[in-house]
């Protein structure tokens, strides 16, 4: 690929991108474990590793003809292997946005923003949590908003992801101030304050890794 700005990825590139994302999340397992231990039950890193390892396996074992299939494979891998809250929640982050979507073979920023926006709604519906409840939504929602804003400004895919990462990071920071209303940290009350949410951290890692992979493509 050229050093030009990447404005869209095809099915094969999308698969490669998420293989890279998965590797990064798996590499962060100890960090996620530590964060979930502080206010949850300590298994978030393990769960995400299981999910992305399964996704990795299923991505590698198959050829894909649409980006819909890539998203679906990742999401269903998570839902069918992880269990726990995050199996459904992160699974829905991938399958929730492609429901009813016509078959696509390339992904640009507007489409990505649209998919994750729909996924966000699906997550909220399933999990009943909203912004400020100290969940992954606190990172995902601002990230989605950043994607949308960037798309509206006709910015490139990589630029959109850069902004999404920044927004997700801010979201993770925000979770430190919240008490938890969902998940295992729920009963913690005031004690949760000062600690960041594990799932939100995973969302940050996902956006950061998508961006890194794209940057790698630009510079490569």
């Amino acid at each position, binding site marked *: 690929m050229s050093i030009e700005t990447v404005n869209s990825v095809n099915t094969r590139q999308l698969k490669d991108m998420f293989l890279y994302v998965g590797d990064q999340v798996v590499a962060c397992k100890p960090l996620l*474990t*530590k964060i979930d*231990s502080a206010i*949850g*039950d*300590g*298994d978030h890193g*393990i*769960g995400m590793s*299981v999910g992305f390892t399964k996704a990795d396996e299923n991505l590698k074992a198959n050829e894909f003809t649409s980006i819909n299939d890539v998203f679906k494979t990742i999401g269903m891998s998570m*839902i*069918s*292997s*992880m*269990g*726990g*809250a*995050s*199996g*459904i*929640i992160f699974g829905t982050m991938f399958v929730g946005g492609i429901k009813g979507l016509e078959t696509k073979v390339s992904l640009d920023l507007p489409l990505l923003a649209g998919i994750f926006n729909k996924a966000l709604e699906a997550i909220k519906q*399933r*999990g009943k949590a909203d912004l400020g409840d100290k969940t992954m939504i606190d990172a995902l929602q601002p990230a989605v908003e950043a994607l949308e804003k960037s798309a509206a400004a006709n910015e490139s895919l990589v630029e959109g992801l850069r902004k999404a990462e920044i927004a997700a990071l801010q979201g993770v920071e925000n979770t430190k101030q919240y008490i938890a209303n*969902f*998940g*295992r*940290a*729920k*009963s*913690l*009350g005031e*004690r949760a304050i000062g600690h960041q949410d594990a799932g939100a951290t995973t969302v940050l890692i996902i956006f950061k890794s998508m961006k890194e992979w794209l940057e790698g493509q630009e510079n490569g």
Partner: protein
Amino acid sequence: MKKIINNPGNVVEEAIEGYMYAYKDSLTKVNNVNGIIRKDLKDKVAIIIGGGSGHEPLFLGFVGEGLADGVAIGNVFAAPTPNTIQDVAKSVDQGKGVLFIYGNYAGDVLNFDMATELLEFEEIQTQTVLVADDVASAPEERKGDRRGIAGDVVVFKIAGAASEKGWSLQEVVRVTQKAADQTFSIGVATAPGSIPGEEEPPFVLGDDEIEIGMGIHGEPGMKRTKLMEADDLTDELLDILLKESKIQTGDEVTVYVNGLGSTTLLELLIVNRRVAQILNKKGIKIYDMDVNSYCTTQEMGGFSITFLKLDDELKDLYDAPADSPYYKKTQKIGEEVK
């Protein structure tokens, strides 16, 4: 933490294999998922239980006559996946409906609910009763937020007995919900457990510290305090439990004193002594007491006390025979079969 395991990623699968070797005469493994069902399925409402691993003998130990017909097993401290639940449900359904019973945790609710949606497509009728017995996890106003701990077992017992009587799904749900509503627990932690394969414990307690009301995944409780004598600690727990449950003079209860892992039966029996003394003093009738480690968190230290407040209907179901690998209730010789 020294754990007797192989690859940490395989603990659940390998434990299930080991379990199946031991109980293959009465149980069957469901293909491709971490689910187990009874061999001698009866033409009745099916009871399915489930939850994360790491709490053994909960959940897999309670599949059998008069208890659950199937169990959906998750990874360590993680709810089972929707397809596991779905496959277990399909394997046990007799067309009379399926009742899901599990502890009230976000992850479990999400996964069982998704399984329910999937099962709707297959026209399998499901109902759910959540166990939310841990009075330390939320005040009465937010009862629906309470976690499920050792009280799971006694609710399974009631549901299993009701379904075994051939009751309709609606009736089984009604009495199971009644049992769940009348089940109250409080726990205390003295030491953390561990996640197999992880070096660090999920929480830390000082050398002489304990935490009253701590959840079975180390969820924070009501207060940290100094280690105290068994009687004083039991008194404090009973104060909370009696206040929250509103159980009072003249009521009749069955009591579970449940060890969390490394707290020994010797200690649990000392606690049970105090529970009995206090209940006797307060004029609360003791129908039965069961001192065991049914719901553990690996080698976590501490225990919980569970009360199920009984009425005649619940007593009858509680007394029914049960026969699973880790919970048996025998019909005494000469006793009338109800």
